[in-house]
């Protein structure tokens, strides 16, 4: 067996040798992950803002739940979605199992608690400063959430990137509900798992590096946009 370095060297050769399949898989990975993260933001950010900004009965319990759900096992999420969408399940008629939609649903379930719990903390810290001024102005609930999320947006970017990281690296759930079906639901992580199970570790590693490359590109784009936004923020 060769050294780690040799493997990495050869790995790139392997990836380069792949045909169009790779771009197909990369595309699907991005599509599924970005959609799931977007939906998770739409749900998780307001939820986090509400938990961070308002006192209400049951708040502590709700925070506890979001924190616990950060530890939601992907396989369990996969199974639940599988059972819901399975032909004999309650939503089987939709025929969504083994489609990218099913994968998006599963990833959304995984990522939403992460974004909710972490953004709750960020918003809560900011709210400690703003709360009295907002109360004095009589800022409404929605406005308040909006203003807190907006003013915390640069810190929240890191939260969203954490959610993205979890989603893009996730394999357990998408494997179950997507099925890793070639040309249909195969994404980067399930392809890596497949190559691993075939014992083709070089290729698996190479694909892993490609995946990290994708994450790098997404992060660079986000950082660049952020940089531009910081400069333009006070226009």
């Amino acid at each position, binding site marked *: 067996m060769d050294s780690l370095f040799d493997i990495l060297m050869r790995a790139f050769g392997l990836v380069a040798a792949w045909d169009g399949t790779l771009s197909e898989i990369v595309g699907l990975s991005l599509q599924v992950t970005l959609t799931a993260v977007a939906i998770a933001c739409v749900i998780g950010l307001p939820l986090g803002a509400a938990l961070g900004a308002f006192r209400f009965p049951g708040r502590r319990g709700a925070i506890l739940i979001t924190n616990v759900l950060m530890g939601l096992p992907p396989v369990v999420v996969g199974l639940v979605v*599988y059972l819901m969408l399975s032909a004999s399940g309650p939503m089987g008629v939709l025929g969504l199992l083994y489609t990218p939609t099913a994968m998006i649903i599963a990833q959304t379930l995984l990522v939403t608690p992460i974004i909710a719990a972490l953004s709750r903390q960020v918003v809560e810290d900011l709210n400690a400063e703003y709360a009295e001024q907002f109360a004095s102005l009589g800022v409404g609930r929605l406005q308040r959430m909006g203003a807190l999320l907006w003013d915390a947006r640069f810190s929240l970017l890191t939260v969203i990137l954490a959610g993205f990281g979890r989603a893009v690296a996730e394999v357990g759930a998408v494997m179950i509900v997507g099925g890793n079906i070639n040309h249909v639901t195969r994404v980067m992580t399930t392809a890596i798992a497949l190559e691993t199970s075939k*014992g083709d570790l070089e290729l698996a590693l190479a694909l892993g590096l490609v995946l990290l490359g994708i994450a790098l590109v997404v992060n660079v784009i986000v950082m660049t946009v952020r940089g531009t936004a910081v400069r333009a923020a006070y226009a």
Partner: protein
Amino acid sequence: QSTTSTQNSGLFDHLLPIFTEKTGIEVRVVAVGTGQAIRNARNGDGDILFVHAKPVEEAFVADGFGLERFDVMYNDFVIVGPAGDPAGLSGQADVLGAFAALAEAQAPFASRGDDSGTHKAELRLWQAAGLDPQAASGTWYRETGSGMGATLNIAVGMGAYAMTDRATWIAFGNKGSHSIVFEGDPRLFNQYGIIAVNPARHPNVKAELAQQFVDWILSDDGQAAIAAFKVDGQQLFFPNATR
């Protein structure tokens, strides 16, 4: 290193306590796909290889990674399908006809697609039937790229046919309304082999203990233990050691 079908069926949970009691040797099972199992064994990360993909196993020995390959037991493959068998596999005379019927009906078929022993066997059968399902990959021919259990979950989930070893199927918990729709063709014979990893290649392997296990499983005792393993009253594996 073992393949998943043996673990999923519970065979090891049956065999290992017997062996441990007898010899005091504790055996640790790492169940992965055949491909990964062979790869791991090449790295010297296992003492014994227990899989079912004869040509690869022989290559493993020929390359000097293993000492000697022995037949241990066999079971057989079956084709499972949704209730009502819409593609009409049960009426076919042999497995080639069954595969042809699948292609004819474009019935959804979940293939392992992971270079596992089962997958290789399936591909040999398509070839023998003169068909190339790869061309239809993504349509009715679904390469799941997953282990046997996962593939069966998928087949059940989307009402597809699948080829599996009988042991996994009998022990499988999520059958849904699926049942065996084709079985019995001698071409569906599934031979398991065992190989002790060559200590000359990997000095760290516990060659002596490994040899004890190999000897035991090939012995009358071991073979009897395999035969005694039953799920739901059915014998899953048929010992056929030739030593």
